[in-house]
């Protein structure tokens, strides 16, 4: 047959309108173009979603999750109307009610709590991207019991970064992708900051830069890494400290950087009998003191012309004060950290550790370069150029979700700092509002007065025992026991302990648990089966032990079934949001940036954006921040709050288009047209950092001045990086018996041991792990986010199954073949699951994709869906508490410094099981509050 080419329309209309907003399919918060088409009924429908080329985060690209947003927006699992529980908790028996009734119920429950005992409300949020707003609401309510999900996510990473260098990895900083030549990433989750990291890896690989991946599992970024280090989980800190040992021993460190910009030269009290032992020698203004190498004199670190001496000591009376750098030499030059000593524990041969340290140093020092930008530091020293050290690091949850994670993250920052690669060209760069040291953050507040707001922000950065959230009798002020001796530096709270503690009445009982976007009865809790029992447990009177539960979610998640009252949220395309500089903005290293979401379509269900509901509920409860002078509702909805709320005079949720005419950036009066200006600008706002201010930000006068102008700070606040974390030393001093506020005796040794002011590595608590020798991990796929993806018809075709991946050696040892089943046991529980072999995996580690397993009846999935039959959670194997020690105490399975949930400390054993039809344990079905999903889809909006 001869070719017969049809005539094609090569320029069909793409859409009727493009509406630009912000993605919400993960924490990346990319800009998206939502293409709208009017259908045959005259309704505007979402037709296609692509990345916004102008957007600072994604510059046009978009991941699978983002492109599949249309299926999330149209998911059959969307809740449709407020729900009141009518059956037993956990069953999913609800009746639909009107919003007025729902809000009245909530008000009737909450008003008496506020009037009598505000701490009886525990308000915790999960994948909340409005934490500066939800915390403001909780603060106005007056309960000390508020936090978001950071405690079970990655507080170790955030806190270690902020305490050490005034900013963390995650999305708060980034490698200098334009200049870096060696990029080393540790334990990086593939679903966070994912588009920027993918873009960066593509960019540097195109230049021939080397990528080194440190991860027990070689998938994703590690699959494209030039070198893969399949480390033994939980030993990253030891590996890093060994590289620090090698680099210090060889003198391959940046002494000039250490002297100028870090506390390495700061003098430390050396008198073992002193209550100041191990604290900095400070002047009368509280400033750290150093010896100036030029004058030999003692001086505050920040005085003009001072050249701090890394080596000089200072004697006052008979007390020798030694610089931090001496302490580092003493600690890290010992053979305890020699590669030969750590190799077996890390599972990395000693010559390999040396090779990587060598390569890092070679690139940092032998490929150093200069950028032609003159800048002036806080001492007034003018630098003609900016020295580039093109080695960059990135790390995420893999190293932080261990009980030694805080110190491991600190160790990694120490490695960056001794190489002089932070805030320099080619290294790691902060994104505004960072850099911001721990001392510039709030301290935690827990002062409760019935009927009044809390005495300050809930969360913050303690500087010592005086800042702990303890009641006068020394018991925890917060339900999650954050900021107590058990985990003094728990900057993000401990959401994972709330249900367990509330059920145990430890430290006290609560009345109402109010949660937002947190699947705490399923994949977001350890000990999932136990948590479901706690949520449904009744006392001798037949009342629920946790009396009331209010929950807001957009979808029919597992948690919905356990609530008494459901406040249905909108999808991300139906709502206002602000991605705020007061919270977790979308800045780049060379620009401040924030963004909005706006309703590109109106909901077709009787649902309301949760933040707007809080504006309403806040007014009904008479919360001071939510009522006007006449007692009426102050903010009609969240959009009104975003536009008109001022946190400080002239500083609001959005930095862009401020002032009456919308020309002011950062500071300025509220602008009633602000949201429209954002919409016209593509949904975001960018404010560039001037040339010459883009690096060395913590010490660069030009940056500090720009940050003040922009409203990030109220005054310049240059600071030194904290290689030596003095707050940790203060807790050690208390444990040694100094001071009025004393830890309980059972915690003294642990505090002394773990809270070393210089990073250390320690093995996590192995009690009860005898016979359990295999580490079990979870990962999140790039194409799925937490529990959300399974309801997405497109994404579940990519990740609908989650076998347990076993390394070849364990497959052979257990006579297993792909598709066989295995019984996996931990000290806490057991699961029986399908297995699959994976060769590119640490030989003593097993893993699976996180949160693919679903409860039958949830997420509008069919009962026969693989997620609900063969899908499973490792959570059943992980307890929120360590095995009992016989002392009657409840020891959290968490980092003893921050309370970070130690998900990745899980140890298991594996044996072959007869084939199963479903994974075990099984959970009875929950009744779905939404209609059954359609069988087939053939989408086309027109």
């Amino acid at each position, binding site marked *: 047959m001869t070719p017969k080419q049809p005539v094609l329309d090569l320029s069909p209309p793409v859409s009727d309108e493009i509406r630009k907003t912000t993605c919400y399919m993960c924490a990346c918060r990319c800009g998206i173009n939502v293409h709208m088409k009017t259908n045959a009924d005259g309704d505007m429908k979402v037709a296609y979603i692509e990345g916004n080329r102008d957007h600072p985060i994604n510059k046009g690209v978009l991941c699978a999750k983002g492109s599949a947003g249309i299926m999330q927006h149209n998911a059959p699992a969307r809740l449709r109307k407020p729900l009141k529980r009518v059956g037993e908790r956990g069953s999913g028996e609800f009746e639909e009610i009107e919003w007025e009734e729902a809000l009245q119920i909530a008000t009737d429950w909450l008003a008496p709590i506020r009037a009598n005992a505000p701490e009886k409300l525990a308000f915790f949020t999960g994948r909340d991207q409005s934490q500066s707003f939800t915390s403001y609401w909780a603060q106005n309510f007056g309960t000390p019991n508020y936090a978001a999900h950071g405690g079970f996510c990655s507080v170790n990473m955030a806190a270690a970064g902020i305490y050490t260098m005034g900013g963390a990895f995650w999305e708060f900083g980034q490698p200098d992708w334009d200049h870096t030549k060696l990029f080393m990433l540790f334990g990086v989750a593939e679903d966070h900051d994912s588009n920027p990291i993918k873009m960066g890896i593509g960019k540097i690989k195109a230049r021939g830069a080397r990528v080194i991946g440190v991860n027990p599992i070689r998938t994703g970024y590690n699959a494209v890494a030039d070198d893969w280090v399949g480390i033994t989980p939980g030993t990253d800190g030891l590996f890093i400290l060994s590289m620090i040992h090698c680099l210090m021993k060889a003198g391959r460190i940046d002494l000039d950087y250490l002297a100028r910009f870090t506390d390495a030269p700061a003098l430390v009290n050396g008198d073992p009998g002193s209550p100041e032992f191990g604290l900095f020698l400070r002047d009368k203004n509280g400033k750290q003191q150093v010896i100036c190498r030029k004058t030999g004199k003692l001086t505050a670190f920040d005085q003009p012309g001072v050249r701090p001496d890394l080596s000089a000591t200072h004697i006052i009376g008979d007390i020798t004060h030694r610089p931090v750098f001496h302490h580092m030499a003493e600690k890290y030059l010992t053979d305890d950290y020699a590669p030969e000593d750590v190799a077996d524990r890390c599972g990395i041969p000693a010559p390999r550790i040396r090779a990587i340290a060598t390569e890092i140093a070679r690139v940092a020092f032998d490929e150093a370069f200069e950028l032609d930008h003159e800048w002036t530091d806080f001492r007034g020293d003018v630098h003609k150029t900016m020295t580039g050290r093109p080695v960059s690091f990135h790390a995420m949850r893999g190293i932080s979700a261990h009980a030694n994670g805080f110190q491991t993250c600190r160790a990694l920052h120490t490695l960056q700092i001794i190489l002089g690669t932070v805030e320099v060209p080619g290294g790691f760069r902060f994104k505004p509002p960072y850099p911001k040291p721990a001392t510039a953050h709030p301290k935690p507040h827990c002062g409760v007065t019935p009927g009044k707001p809390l005495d300050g922000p809930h969360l913050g950065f303690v500087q010592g025992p005086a800042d702990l959230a303890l009641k006068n009798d020394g018991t925890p002020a917060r339900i999650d026991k954050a900021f107590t001796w058990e985990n003094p530096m728990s900057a993000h709270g401990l959401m994972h302990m709330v249900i367990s503690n509330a059920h145990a009445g430890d430290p006290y009982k609560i009345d109402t648990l109010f949660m937002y976007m947190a699947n705490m009865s399923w994949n977001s809790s350890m000990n999932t089966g136990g948590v479901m029992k706690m949520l449904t447990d009744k006392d001798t009177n037949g009342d629920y032990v946790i009396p009331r539960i209010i929950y807001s979610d957009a979808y029919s998640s597992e948690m919905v079934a356990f609530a008494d009252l459901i406040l249905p949220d909108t999808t991300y395309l139906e709502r206002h949001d602000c991605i705020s500089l007061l919270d977790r903005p979308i800045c780049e290293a060379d620009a401040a940036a924030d963004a909005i979401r706006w309703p590109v379509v109106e909901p077709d269900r009787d649902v309301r954006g949760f933040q707007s509901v809080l504006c309403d509920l806040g007014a009904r409860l008479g919360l001071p921040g939510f009522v006007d002078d006449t007692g009426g509702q102050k903010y009609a909805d969240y959009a009104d709050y975003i536009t008109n709320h001022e946190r400080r005079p002239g500083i609001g949720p959005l930095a862009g288009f401020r002032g009456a005419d919308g020309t002011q950036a950062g500071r300025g009066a509220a602008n009633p047209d602000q949201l429209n200006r954002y919409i016209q600008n593509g949904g975001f706002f960018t404010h560039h950092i001037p040339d010459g201010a883009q690096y060395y930000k913590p010490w660069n006068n030009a940056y500090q001045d720009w940050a003040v102008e922009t409203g990030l700070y109220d005054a310049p606040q240059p600071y030194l990086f904290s290689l030596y974390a003095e707050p940790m030393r203060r807790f050690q001093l208390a444990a040694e018996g100094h001071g009025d506020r004393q830890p309980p005796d059972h915690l003294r040794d642990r505090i002394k041991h773990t809270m070393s002011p210089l990073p250390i590595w320690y093995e996590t608590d192995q009690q009860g792990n005898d016979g359990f020798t295999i580490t079990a991990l979870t990962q999140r796929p790039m194409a799925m986010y937490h529990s959300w993806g399974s309801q997405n018809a497109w994404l579940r075709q990519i990740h609908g199954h989650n076998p347990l991946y076993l390394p070849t050696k364990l497959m052979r040892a257990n006579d297993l073949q792909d598709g066989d089943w295995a019984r996996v046991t931990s000290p806490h529980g057991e699961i029986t699951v399908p297995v699959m072999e994976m060769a590119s995996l640490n030989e003593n580690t097993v893993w699976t994709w996180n949160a693919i397993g679903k409860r039958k009846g949830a997420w509008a*999935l069919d009962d026969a869906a693989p997620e609900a039959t063969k899908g499973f959670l490792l959570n059943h194997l992980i307890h929120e508490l360590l095995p009992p020690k016989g002392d009657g105490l409840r020891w959290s399975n968490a980092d003893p410094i921050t309370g970070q949930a130690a998900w990745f400390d899980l140890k298991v054993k594996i044996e072959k099981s007869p084939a199963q039809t479903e994974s075990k344990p099984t959970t009875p079905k929950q009744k779905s509050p939404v209609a059954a999903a359609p069988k087939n889809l053939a989408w086309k909006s027109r």
Partner: protein
Amino acid sequence: MTELPQATQKKLGLVIDLDTCVGCHACVISCKGWNTENYGAPLSDQDAYGADPSGTFLNRVHSYEVQPDTGPAQLFHFPKSCLHCEDAPCVTVCPTGASYKRAEDGIVLVNESDCIGCGLCAWACPYGARELDQAAGVMKKCTLCVDRIYNDNLPEEDRIPACVRTCPSGARHFGDLGDPDSDVSQLVVARGGVDLMPEQGTKPVNKYLPPRPKDQMPEIDVLAPFLAPIDQEPKGFLGWLDRTLDKI
């Protein structure tokens, strides 16, 4: 049987970099979204929320583990869609002329109004790059976004396939592989791009860039000069420090 054009004016196609593909599936879903809403019948999904969801995709990413002779196992991600072959067996096998290769740019397309859904082309394709849509009963395949690349309604920079526009790691490139001076042809030369299964004789237009060798960092023993200790004694370290600080 349907004839192929004697020659095409251009050879438009994709160059896919296996060194930087992280396997994120962004291209898979972007393609699904665009082609559901645009060219021809929507890409349908059967049992979308059920036991065995199965939909039509024009582009899929496969993953393969490789165990080299030395060093650890490696994992590769391999995106695969129609390669727009010069000698496309899917076209010549078509009984109705619905499958055809465009003379102007070499894109292989299916004219859905002539497709009877017999599936012969999918059998003939050695790459498994065609999928019969179960709802529409017509054969679906990569169109190279023929409704984007010439589309006057799109900004010029967006006149590229959806998968290329969305790829976060920049692993996908689009251009005229018939023009030796084009960026894509130059990239293929520079990186040693290869045909997929050349033994099939289909002369695919799409090219794959092979991954760089991995795990090549030599291990270093204790005496290597780069990391030679400055002094064996801790006191010696502080002496070195003093001497070095004097030079700064």
